[in-house]
C-alpha cells in the first residue's frame, strides 16, 4: 500500500481548524504529547510497515 500523497481529506479546511483548535489551550509540552499520541494512533491505523517507513522518510526535514 503506497503512501497516499494526493489530497484525501474530506473538508480540508474543517479538518485543519479542528486540528489547531484541539491544541489551542494546551501548553507546549501537552501539545507535544498529544502529537506523539496522534502519531501512534494514526500509525496503528495505517499498520503497513512500508507505508509507515515511507511516511517517516518524507516527514523528516531534508538535510541542507
Amino acid at each position, binding site marked *: 500500500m503506497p503512501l497516499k500523497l494526493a489530497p484525501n481529506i474530506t473538508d480540508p479546511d474543517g479538518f485543519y481548524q479542528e486540528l489547531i483548535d484541539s491544541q489551542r489551550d494546551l501548553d507546549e509540552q501537552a501539545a*507535544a*504529547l498529544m502529537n*506523539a*499520541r496522534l*502519531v501512534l*494512533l494514526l500509525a*496503528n491505523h495505517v499498520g503497513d510497515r512500508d507505508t509507515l517507513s515511507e511516511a517517516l522518510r518524507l516527514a523528516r526535514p531534508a538535510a541542507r
Partner: protein
Amino acid sequence: MSQTFTPPHYAWRPAPEQTGGLVATHPVIVIGAGPVGLTAALDLAARGVRVVVLDDNDTVSTGSRALCYAKRTLEVWDRLGCGEAVAEAGVRWQVGKVYFRDEMVYRFDLLPEPDHKMPAMVNLQQYHLEQTLVERCLASDLIDLRWRHRVVSVEQEAGSVRLGVETPDGTYLAQASWVIACDGANSDTRAMVGAPFSGQAFQDRFLIADVLMKAEFPTERWFWFDPPFHPGQSALLHKQRDNVWRIDFQLGWDADPVEERKPERVEARVRQMLGPDADFELEWVSIYQFACRRIDRFRYGRMLFAGDSAHQVSPFGARGANSGVQDIDNLAWKLQCVLAGVAPETLLDSYHDERALAADDNIRNSTRSTDFITPKNASSRLFRDAVLGLARDHAFARPLVNSGRLSLPTRYANSPLITADVDSFDAPSAMPGAPCPDAPVELPDGRQGWLLEHLGAGFTLLVVGEDPAVDQSAAWPMPLARLRVGHDFFDRAGVLAARLDAHAQAVYLIRPDQFIAARWRSPSSNQIRAALARSLGHH
C-alpha cells in the same frame, strides 16, 4: 551478607603439570567456571571429551546476577541431565505487570504453549545454578575442575595452545588442542588474544539489590516507569528462590556509584518502594552501567569465545547467560566432531556464523528494550510516555511497550550447515535452522516422556511414516540414529504431528544440539547423506 546461602569453597589442588606427572596435551581447556564454562564442561563430557576447567576463584557467584533462565536454556541443561533440577529449584512465573506513574497500564502473560517439558522461564539466583552445575561436574570422571588456577598467558602454536597458569603454588604451562574462553565480559583471554570488542555503552546507571523479605506479592514480574516512589526513572521487582527478591532501580547517568551503593541509601530507596512498614534485609547490592558489545570473531585459531567474553547485552530480556549457554550448545558437538576426525576444523567457523547471528539478534532486542526504558532525548521520552499512556486504555499500544522481550532461540537462517527446504511444510516453529520443538510422547511400555529426551547424542533421523531407504554401502561421515514415530514411541496427543507438520509422511534430520538440519517428505539416501555432510562442514 546472604542469610539464605552459604557459598561453598572448593579446595585448591596443584595440577598434574605441577606435581611432575607426565601430562599429555588436553583435548579441551575451558577458562572460567561460570554458568557458560560449567555448561561447556558438562556438554563436552557428555560427548566423551576430557576437559580441564580453570577458574581464578574458588567459589560460585556473589549475588543473584543472571537470574532468569529461558526454556531453550533449560532444554540444553536437560540434555545434560540437570534441566529438571534447575527447573524445580527455580521460581516459575508467567505474568508481568507494567506500571506507569501510579497506575497499572498493562498486564501480560507469557502464556507458555502447553506440552513442553520445560517451562517458559524460571528465576534462580546464579549461585544456586552454579552450585548445581559444579556438583554435576564433580561427579564426572572426564572433568578436571581446577580452582584458583588463573590464566596469565596465551600462546598459539601449530596444533595446540599453551596457557600460562598462575596458582597459589607458582605458575605452570598447560597445553590443549582447543581452548574455550568463558571468562566473562572483561575477559582477560580476549585481551591476551587482542580481539576487538566493540559496540555501544549506555549512558545510564542501574542499582540492583537482592532483598530478603516475606512479602505477599504474587510471583510476577513488576516493572514501573516513572513511579511515585522513584520519579523520572524505572524500577523492577522480581521474585527469586528462598524469599529473596530482585529489585532494580534506574539511577540515571549522573548518579554517584559509590554513594548509591551505601546500604543506608539503598534501604531508603527500597523503603520508599515497599512502604514504611516493610520488613526486609539487603543481601547483595551492585551498581552497573550496561553495554552491548560483540567480539569480531568467535574463533581465533584454536581459541573459541563463548558467553559474555564474546558478547555483552543489556539485562532487559535475560539474554546474557541464556545466549552463553546456547553458544555452548552450538559449539560442544562441533568440537567433538573435529576432535574425533569426522569433521574438518573449518566446521568451527560455523560456530561464529551461527552464534554471531544470535548475538546480533540478542543485541538488537536488548538495545530496543534499553531505548524504550531509558529514552535518549526529550522526543523519545515523549513517544515512550505516549505509548504508556495509550496502553492503559487501548490494546493497540500494548505491543509497543518494551520492558524486555522474552529470550527465544535464534534460528540459524542461511547458515552454511543448514539444508533449505525442497518440500513444503506448514510448521513455522520447526523450520530448518530452528531447534526441534518438544512434544509429549508415549513409550512402547506405556511410560510418558518427551521427544527431546529421545533425540540421540549424535545426529538423529526422526521418521514419521515410511522409513527412507539408507544406502549402507555408501560412505557416511558418521552414524545416524533412527527414531521412528509409531515404533520407538507414539504420538498419542498428536502434538508432534502438529508441530512438525508430520501427519502422514515426514523425515527430519536433527543435529546433536537438537537443531533441525534438514527436512523432507520422502528423501533419498543421497539427499540425507548430503545434508549430513553439509551439517558437518564438508562442502
